[in-house]
């Protein structure tokens, strides 16, 4: 999991650098507003909408799949609609889509299944107008579970495709 954390951190640094230039005026307004209302704790405001943290926490970075399936569910498509909207607005960012499987399957088949899932997400985002060149896919098969119990409650969360926002196109 370390490489993913490193990517997110890197992206956060880039996005801060990116906002200070074109949005300098907005930033100043925000700062003065904060000073004028000291009762509001800045930490409680959450990540700014143009950050990868916001994408991850508020837009929703993952969609889940049924057993041995790579078909997007209605709920999955709704999340991907929001992802596509965010990516359209924040056009400096690229993304890696990770496909995963639960442990109920052989290793190499699950690698291919994870690739199908990440590709289903990519194709959906492309159909919503996101450029193919901004999206890469990778599969981890059953190698990177986030939940470790051997029950459907955990398996359901592991059968996922996660959109990881990373550095801007110009970086």
């Amino acid at each position: 999991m370390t490489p993913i954390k490193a990517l997110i951190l890197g992206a956060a640094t880039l996005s801060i650098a990116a906002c200070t230039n074109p949005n300098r005026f907005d930033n100043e307004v925000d700062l003065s507003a904060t000073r004028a209302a000291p009762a509001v704790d800045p930490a409680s405001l959450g990540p700014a909408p143009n950050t990868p943290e916001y994408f991850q926490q508020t837009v929703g970075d993952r969609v889940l799949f049924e057993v041995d399936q790579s078909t997007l569910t209605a709920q999955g498509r709704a999340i991907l609609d929001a992802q596509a909207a965010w990516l359209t607005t924040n056009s400096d960012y690229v993304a890696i889509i990770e496909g995963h499987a639960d442990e109920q399957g052989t290793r190499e088949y699950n690698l291919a299944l994870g690739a199908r899932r990440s590709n289903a997400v990519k194709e959906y985002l492309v159909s919503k107008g996101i450029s193919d060149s901004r999206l890469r896919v990778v599969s981890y098969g059953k190698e990177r579970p986030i939940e470790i119990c051997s029950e459907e409650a955990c398996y359901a969360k592991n059968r996922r495709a996660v959109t990881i926002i990373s550095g801007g196109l110009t970086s």
Partner: protein
Amino acid sequence: MMTRVLAAMMALMLSVSAGLAQNGPLRIEITEGVIEPVPFAAPAFVAETAGAGEWGQRIAQVVADDLVGTGLFRQIGQQAFISQVTSFQSPVAYADWKAINAQALITGAVQTDGAGNLVVKFRVYDVFAGGELGAGLQFAGTTEGWRRMAHKVADAVYSRITGEGGYFDSRVVFVSEAGPKDDRRKRLGIMDYDGANVQYLTDSRALVLAPRFSPTGDRVLYTSYESGFPRIKVLDIGSVQSRTLEQGDATMSFAPRFAPDGRSVVYSLTTGGNTDLYKLDLGSGATTRLTSAPGIETAPSYAPDGSRIVFESDRSGTQQLYIMPAGGGEAQRISFGDGRYGTPVWSPRGDLIAFTKQSKGRFHIGVMRVDGSEERLLTASFLDEGPTWAPNGRVIMFARETQGAQGTSSLYSVDVSGRNLKRVRTPDGASDPSWSPLQ
């Protein structure tokens, strides 16, 4: 290290025993169902030079462990012996060995010199027939390679009594696993077939999966995430140097296996969401596409004669086994039972396909004939997967993962008859075993 030992090792005939090699009544037919293990005695090999005694003890013990480990033999402890073997040349006191019901007697002698050279010789006796089983043999090597020499002795004994090829002088490459399920670190390990002499071929920085030995045991194919994306690599065991075989625009390449001639590799390549089989010529770098169905085609395995490839595909809707000509072309489905079938591996004897089967929430290792008939399941557990054949096609090793948050993976072996299921010791968790040819 091992290649040096191999180069130094040679076998020569000691003598042809009186009455020639005989196949007396001492014979195990290992295709039979339930077998009563054959009792044998293996006294410490006689030291013929000063300082060789320690090697004599250790070598006799490894020989005995190899034989007992097959489930076909039972060792008679030294405390039961009536006779002691103090000279390799002296006549055998058959009556004393008969009295303790030792059906086979293995005697040996060792010589060492100050330069680390080791000579091992042995004889096998069919006690009840009152004669030698085959001729005496001698191996010369170094003390560093003492275990290999012991395995060679055990292979010869096994072969003479069963009529089958041996498998003890072989190695296994595998994935060594450490850490919990959600932070598992994997690296390639290599060890003797019995878990001794573990060495590591990669570190844990990049995820590695599913290594496979070359037909000569000198190289290993595997899948690595070194670039951040799965790519197939080949590693030279002697130099521990590796190179990436494929780094095109595709999503990933994985599941590489050598052709029997070692000159080409069949593997899976994923483009978009579609996974197909390709062949890569190692000399020219040229690739040939072998399948073009829209499904997942992976886990290929060549027939020992190189003419056909068995693989898994979900083109029918679920994972099933198919066989096609090695150059691609029409594939015949061979698995038709309930459940899903994956990871087919062709037996080195050519007669059987080993596979992983998922059915009703359980995993099995099984075998079937090449035409799909006579399916037999050898194991059952929460998660068994990834069979690999011993060089003689009589034993299968695989990985078993235990259930739940604390689940870990270990290697197990089982006879092709389904008997003698046992764990193979490894220092940490282990998965994805691949058995080498006989060295």
